[in-house]
């Protein structure tokens, strides 16, 4: 990939970037263990090539595609996004990849496609954390169609100009920067266009704590901690959390008229 030639996106932030070492050693990826150091240690067992992605549901062109065919039609661009974890920490990460909307359009979703459902690989041999029932495997996430088609929603195949490390969700992951990090599902093997709101892994595990939308919102606390502030990795003082993680100008209109306390 001619990464050096990548144009800077208008969506990128110019805030200081979190060091590569921290981005790749401090991860929540329960498929490899519940400790944040586990993914970096154990994700080596994940085989990312060959890799297939199945696209199904309410679309004209479903099928199972080799990863190369998923990626090939899209150029690669860099997006430097803030990432805010629901646990109260944040990073700034330069992702490489392409816009989710461009990918989804290729499969020609029908008018019945109201939501997009994403699924992570399920294979306890490659993902030892799946031997324990800490979550309902495989990991499932979802977006409303208009959220998925928003230009900020991104499919990452790399970070810092390098191939995406396994612990960060290789070979293909979602990045939705205005939502808490767990919405940005990793190591995707299935994309489904569906008519009804899909159940998500964290939503099923603790419905009172992890809603379907999970937009970053300093006004709506997590039941066990405040979401007003966050610790940017590498900083001593906490900083205030911004509405929609600082992307309110771009995405607030998606939720106009919605009670964000109810649809947390």
């Amino acid at each position, binding site marked *: 990939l001619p990464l050096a030639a990548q144009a800077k996106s208008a969506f990128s932030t110019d805030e200081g970037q979190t060091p590569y*070492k921290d981005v790749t050693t401090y991860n929540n990826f329960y498929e490899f263990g519940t400790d*944040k150091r586990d993914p970096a240690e154990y994700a080596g067992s994940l085989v990312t090539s060959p890799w297939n992605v199945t696209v199904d549901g309410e679309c004209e062109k479903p099928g199972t595609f080799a990863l190369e065919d998923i990626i090939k039609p899209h150029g690669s661009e860099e997006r430097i996004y803030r990432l805010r974890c629901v646990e109260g920490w944040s990073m700034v990460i330069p992702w490489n990849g392409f816009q989710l909307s461009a990918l989804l359009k290729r499969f020609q979703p029908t008018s019945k496609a109201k939501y997009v459902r994403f699924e992570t690989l399920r294979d306890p041999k490659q993902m030892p954390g799946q031997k324990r029932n800490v979550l309902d495997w495989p990991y499932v996430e979802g977006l409303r169609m208009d959220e998925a088609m928003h230009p900020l929603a991104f499919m990452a195949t790399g970070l810092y100009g390098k191939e995406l490390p396994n612990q960060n969700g290789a070979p293909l992951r979602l990045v939705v920067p205005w939502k808490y990090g767990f919405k940005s599902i990793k190591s995707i093997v299935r994309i489904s266009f569906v008519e009804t709101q899909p159940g998500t892994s964290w939503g099923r595990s*603790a419905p009172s704590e992890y809603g379907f939308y999970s937009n970053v919102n300093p006004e709506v606390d997590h*039941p*066990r*901690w405040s979401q007003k502030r966050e610790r940017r*990795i590498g900083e*001593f003082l906490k900083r205030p959390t911004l509405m929609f993680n600082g992307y309110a100008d771009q995405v607030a209109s998606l939720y106009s008229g919605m009670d964000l306390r109810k649809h947390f």
Partner: protein
Amino acid sequence: MQIREPYFSKVFKPAVFVLALTPLAWMVWGVWQDALGANPIEYVTRSLGEWALRFLLFTLLISPLRRAAGWTQGMRLRRMLGLFAFFYGALHLLSYLWLDQFFDWAEIWKDILKRPFITVGMLAFLLMTPLALTSFKAAMRKLGRNWQRLHTLIYPLTSLAVLHFWWLAESKERLAMPLVYAVLLAVLLGERVLRWLQRKMPLLRLELPRVLRRS
């Protein structure tokens, strides 16, 4: 099993004291050397809390050890272990007040009222404070029989500390460690309940081994 004098007071006890300080030394060194991962503040806050809990359990282990193995000298370490629990607990609380909340007292108060895991954590520390304050010989003499009664607070406060850890980890499915502590606490408390039952009902003394075998 006993350690000969003067080795117990001159070597063993000081060694336990130094050993009890190594977790703190490791944290200080780790912060200095940037060896605690991407989020050292979280690491320090969590470890301080875990060490407070561990020292509470060490403290609770002393009298069963005397009863089971006849190791009476342990009683001479108990106050020190209890005070280390308080020491790590106080540092854990300080790290929350300072590094997590930056002494924003309004937010802290809201946190205590609104979040059960903070409420029980605070309560555990609150109950531990009078125990630390009355851990000296003079206080023991002055309180007499009431000293013993006061210090049974260690049972509810350690239970609250385990609950504090449990509730923190619960919905993120990180229950492995809280479960370990809950089981250890259950064993330590269970031993006391059994002894209490034996005292109340002498007949049980004969029956108990069979009960134990069944479980």
